[in-house]
């Protein structure tokens, strides 16, 4: 009985974060970055004040973990063309200038923290590799055309 209740609660919490928060974020890459940001760097535990207020700490943690894995696998399955478009949307919707974000992403590689724990190492590597390639493609597209003679 309690296991069923817990499962229903996690599903409810998952639906809640999906409807209240994730649906308002512009693209899957931004959703992934957001979900990764709800994870504590030191412990790997997820935390979301709003969810905890409506559900328990454990239920909120599990729902965030599931949502993070789900979005991660979705983004990892994107073709390079789709991912490059996602990165462009992400750059355009960020508060800072797109070129500045692009430079920071290429140099500091903050997207590395977007990988959930215990996912397939090959998929994690595919995700990182595709992000690096998508950033290089965006950089290539943003190069100004040579002046006409």
């Amino acid at each position, binding site marked *: 009985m309690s296991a069923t209740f817990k499962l229903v609660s996690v599903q409810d919490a998952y639906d809640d974060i999906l409807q209240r928060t994730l649906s308002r974020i512009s693209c899957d890459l931004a959703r992934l970055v957001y979900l990764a940001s709800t994870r504590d760097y030191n412990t790997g535990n997820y935390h979301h004040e709003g969810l905890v207020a409506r559900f328990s700490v454990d239920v909120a943690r599990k729902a965030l973990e599931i949502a993070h894995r789900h979005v991660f696998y979705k983004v990892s*399955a994107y073709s390079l063309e789709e991912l490059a478009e996602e990165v462009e949307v992400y750059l355009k919707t960020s508060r800072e200038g797109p070129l500045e974000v692009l430079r920071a992403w290429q140099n500091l590689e903050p997207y590395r923290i977007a990988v959930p724990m215990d996912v397939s190492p090959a998929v994690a590597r595919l995700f990182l590799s595709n992000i690096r390639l998508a950033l290089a493609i965006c950089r290539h597209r943003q190069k100004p055309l040579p002046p006409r003679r």
Partner: protein
Amino acid sequence: MIGVSIAFAMGMFLLLLGVWRRAMVSSREVPLNGEILPECAQFPVEPCPAEYVSKIFSRADWEFVAALSSPSLEGFFRAERKSLALLWVQQTTAGIQKIMRQHAEVSRRSEDLDFATEMWLFLRYAELRMVCAILFVSIELAGPLWLRGLALRASKLSQRIEQAQEAFNAVAGEAREVRSIDS
């Protein structure tokens, strides 16, 4: 004539050895810090689903990059995919080795081994190791973009062995329980 054949065979062997060594080096050429390497990973963490294996070896992404007409992007893409594919082959090999080691441990404790099952597992394992070896050398020689079919074959074999091992473990566990109840 025999001397020429032996020299040819030895030459081929040395060539393959050289390619193998290069592939090993390529797979360890980690472009960034903190990469997940097979040596430090706990296998199986989570197997790579076939959908993603297909993506690693897919030509669609290459066609997209090639259409951008940038030699530097093309070179970057080829290097990334090559090291990724080699890493996947190494992880698949390491993962299946771990499964087989676990199987050997369970088998040693088991009192009613089925010869046909053991033979099936051994043959699939040998086949998978051979496919992985071919993939490893071929990726180094020609890149991963021509090897999707073979990679999917390896992925499927790996899954089948894992499933067979899980079923074997379940049966061995049940048999142990029955014996403990009887005694």
